[in-house]
């Protein structure tokens, strides 16, 4: 009996969520939310390792603090802050829409269709503007104080 021809695995995998291509703004927010979430988890692990350095004595701690005072780490610190702000603000948007707010009511679809994504687009813009404002305020306080 001949072998059954096999189908080709056409799953996009990681590329499927890091590449948004021609999709809408919210699809890019999805990438940002996941990446910032992963970044914050990585920071938490690093933060525990960093603070554990205190156990190695005062000199080791002072050397580490000296390293963190460099301009490169200031930028890293700001990126971390920006990721936290974005993740929190987008999280507020997700909480609201996941509880059904700002999405309108179900109705029979009539062309041209207006999806729930477009219905809550004003909320998306307002929240992203607020996130941008917070990032700008945080940046000015960190770099120009």
């Amino acid at each position, binding site marked *: 009996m001949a072998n059954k021809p096999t189908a080709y695995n056409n799953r996009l995998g990681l590329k499927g969520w890091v590449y948004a291509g021609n*999709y809408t703004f919210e699809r890019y927010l999805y990438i940002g939310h996941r990446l910032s979430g992963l970044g914050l988890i990585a920071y938490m692990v690093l933060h525990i390792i960093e603070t554990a350095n205190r156990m190695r004595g005062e000199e080791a701690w002072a050397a580490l603090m000296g390293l963190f005072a460099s301009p490169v780490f200031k930028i890293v610190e700001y990126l971390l802050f920006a990721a936290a702000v974005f993740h929190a603000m987008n999280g507020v948007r997700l909480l609201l829409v996941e509880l*059904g707010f700002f999405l309108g009511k179900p*109705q029979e679809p009539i062309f041209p269709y207006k999806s729930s994504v477009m219905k809550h687009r004003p909320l998306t813009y307002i929240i992203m503007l607020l996130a941008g404002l917070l990032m700008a305020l945080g940046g000015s306080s960190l770099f120009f104080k």
Partner: protein
Amino acid sequence: MTDTKQITFRIRRYDPDLDTIPHWEEHKLNVPDGMTVLEALQEIKAEQAPTLAWRSSCRMGVCGSCGMFINHLPMLACQTQVLHLGTDVVTVAPLPNYDNVKDLVPNLEPLIQKHAAIKPFIILTNSKEIDEPTGEFIQTPEQRDEYSQFTFCIKCGLCLAACPTVATDPLFLGPQALAQAYRYTVDNRDCGLQERLEAIDAFHGPYQCHMAGACSQACPKGVDPAFGIQLLKRTLVLDSIGFGKKKSSVAKVMPLADIVKQIEEFAPPPRTVGK
């Protein structure tokens, strides 16, 4: 004579008997205004690539067979006009996130399996009412409006091809099944939320959705599966904290005697002609 424009079609080919990985083929075609991608493929097959395979049936966006990845977006080939795409090169590939059976043919089996997993039918807890119905269910237009949008799903599978979560999590139920789970759960005749919980209130359930909205953008019928998923999440949250809709074990039933009375009330007047 109709104006035509020469378009290059980059079509992904895969024959499981001959190929180990897919390859791309280019075909040039003079495309008149109004020609759909499906019609273009039919012409390419007739004149240039006789072995080209795809799946299609109704040619009018009803059957949902001809879903393809056209210019990197999932679309129905029969509803997509080539010149409306606005590019001189049109890429046509099989829907991603499904196994590729041959050329442009995806294996939609996972879509059907996930759809079946959420028990897509009205569930009654009173089995006697199923076997020996005593009357009709009452449903107001407002109650019907709660789910009617989601009944327009044609199971074309474009939403799963667009979903970034499905791309990395093959077990995620996906927009189609979750929207249908909401469609049946919110139906006032249905009492099946608890029976569906095992499938939908799980790790691979609606909470994996982060409202990317790609499914709703891809949906050719305006079903808006992302909306259905968010409403399903709300339903599950309200149910888990005890604020879910309280339904009787048997949905409201109008007694048959009342229906007969209504029929009598609205009976036509007695015939006067031809007596």
